């Protein structure tokens, strides 16, 4: 295996396919790493890296933010969620601003913190805003199971969990995007393994490589993708072997489906995708904040002029949004892709927006 940056770069520039290829990095952590390490400066222009929908905060639709804001307005609840979620703009406001106004909204670093708080404060109704892909779903499953076993009856989850392979199928079918290969997420794959992507190679003939997050990992995965394209042998390869096994983590997957059933889910930018979400099984529905705290239907709208939807599908680059770095900046984000530490607009803004002006 080649490993040094120089060798990998040489291998990429030397591998002439004679055409431009679109490689989608599905995961937001990959997008960040590519921007942060300036990897676009090392690869030939014929390799077009496009960001995918793998940023959980970014694909959460405005309606979910609006709903949870409404719940915290109408009911006396303590809300816990991960930091990134706070600043995502809903139609009118964000959790961050409502927290500053005094609503009981808290950042936690593990879902267990929310459950602990519920246990220690039986008089409070505690909601965990559960967000994320297959990487974080097992953690939510653990706390729901614990809450069930311990009969904690003041704890709820507002579930926005989503599943990656189903979204990739939608993108593979999309005629506008023309994805030639997927750089598949490392952490998600540590849970689900490589098999759930099999259909991409078999049915859609799209090469996939599950990649780690160091610059060497990403470059090596690109080399592996080019090899597959050249040989016309699409398959699901694992570059991130130090973490990902073919079978993934079966006990984590088992736990997920012990607590949840698959359901349809709406993704910002991609719309409703069949089977791409999860809902609590009947047995656990008492923990469902959407059922326990009903709110009237609210008018939600994605922000005007925001191209997050097209950015998430890889149709547009962040630079091509007319709000980018003008009205939409990290300190005053219009769309979620500028908020999240894994969002592609944030990555481009933070690390790449000035580069064209720099000579060194």
């Amino acid at each position, binding site marked *: 295996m080649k490993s040094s940056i120089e060798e990998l770069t040489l291998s990429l520039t030397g591998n002439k396919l004679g055409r431009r290829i679109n490689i989608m990095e599905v995961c937001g952590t990959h997008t960040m790493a590519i921007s*942060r390490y300036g990897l676009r400066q090392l690869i030939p222009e014929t390799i077009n890296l496009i960001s995918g929908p793998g940023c959980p905060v970014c694909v959460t639709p405005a309606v979910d933010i609006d709903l949870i804001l409404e719940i915290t307005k109408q009911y006396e609840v303590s809300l816990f969620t991960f930091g990134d979620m706070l600043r995502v703009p809903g139609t009118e406001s964000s959790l961050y601003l409502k927290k500053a106004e005094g609503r009981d909204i808290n950042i936690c670093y*593990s879902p267990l913190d929310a459950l602990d708080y519920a246990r220690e404060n039986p008089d409070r109704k505690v909601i965990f805003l559960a967000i994320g892909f297959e990487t974080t779903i097992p953690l939510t499953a653990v706390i729901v199971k614990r809450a069930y076993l311990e009969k904690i009856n003041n704890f709820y989850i507002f579930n926005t969990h989503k599943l990656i392979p189903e979204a990739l199928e939608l993108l593979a079918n999309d005629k506008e995007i023309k994805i030639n290969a997927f750089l598949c997420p490392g952490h998600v794959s540590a849970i689900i393994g490589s098999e759930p992507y099999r259909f991409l190679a078999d049915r859609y003939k799209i090469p996939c490589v599950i990649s780690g997050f160091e610059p060497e990992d990403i470059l090596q995965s690109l080399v592996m993708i080019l090899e597959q394209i050249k040989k016309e042998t699409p398959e699901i390869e694992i570059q991130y072997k130090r973490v990902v096994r073919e079978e993934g983590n079966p006990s984590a997957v088992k736990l997920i489906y012990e607590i949840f059933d698959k359901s349809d889910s709406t993704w910002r930018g991609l719309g409703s995708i069949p089977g791409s979400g999860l809902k609590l099984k009947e047995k656990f529905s008492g923990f469902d904040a959407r059922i326990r705290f009903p709110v009237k239907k609210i008018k939600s709208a994605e922000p005007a002029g925001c191209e997050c939807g097209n950015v998430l599908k890889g149709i547009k680059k962040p630079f091509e949004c007319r709000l980018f770095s003008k009205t939409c900046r*990290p*300190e005053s984000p219009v769309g979620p892709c500028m908020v999240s530490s894994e969002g592609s607009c944030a990555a481009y803004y933070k690390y790449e927006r000035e580069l064209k002006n*720099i000579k060194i």
Partner: protein
Amino acid sequence: MTIYKNSQNKKINKRFDDKIIQLSHGDGGIKTGELITNLLLGYFGNEVLNKLEDSAVISCSGHKIAYTTDSFVVDPIFFPGGDIGKLSICGTINDLVTTGCVPTALSLSFIIEEGFTVPDFKKILSSIKNTINDNELRIVTGDTKVVGKGSADKIFINTSGIGIINKNIELSPRRIKAGDKILINGGIAEHGIAILGSRKEFNFKSSIKSDCAPLSSLVTDMLSVSKKIHALRDVTRGGLASILFEMSGASGHSINIYENEIPIKKEVLGICQFLGLDPLYIANEGKMVVFVDNKDTDRVLLAMKKNEYGKDSRIIGEVTEKYEKSDTGKKSDKGNVILITRLGTIRTLDLQYCEQLPRIC
């Protein structure tokens, strides 16, 4: 007071549209800059305050006096490597000595929450006493307020200080010129990571201690070997990246920084990677960046390395071209802080735009 100055924004945008104060208004990043430049300077701006340096320099009966103030709200109040008391003294000393002055007198004020225990208070007082004794300083004035339970969190401290600057010394970002080398006196991000590791919500153990330290002797040692030190800056809230960005703006120069040269402990880097934090934006409390004429770099570096707070000093970058300031705000006129990554690629360093960790100092 570490606050940012962005000469470009200052000209374009004088409005402050936020309706409520948010945590990010206090993180030393973009929002803090907006609060200070667009709101506070609107009320109080004058030729001294407008410089927004760590300490103000004022003339008084033929003397040059450095004057600064700082408030401390760190949570928890006791942390590995220090406590809120030591921090409040070191913070003010370090702000003062960026002017090259000899600190002479400090003020000390407390806001204490009802119910705070006297043994804890005494612990803080001893720590303050030890720090001022070590630095041959005196507290010459102070104040104490107690507020009801819940109106403050345990204890908040404000300190201010003055020092006298030798008339031959002038340190200021305006003296920075192309070719200057940029040095730092040791590993970054240790204070922030130590605070984070001592908070209960982060469930991890580390051996990282805060770098909280008074840097007056370090500055004295540097100034004794070179007359060509152009500027110093205390690297605190907002981290190394924010401070370099401010210095670029204040000096009108671009800066190149080499990622490979930035000192950072392996464990600190590991924790940052694990938690998704960028160490360049994590707070320090005993770090100084030094801008020195290329000719004197070696002797200043040597002097720093000999000091107990500068053993791991390194040259981390250099000042490149001067850029023309203009009123148009065109991008080409703006200086950049450029990080040359370990891969040899480049990226820009920006101000922090959202607090990574509140109540860090």
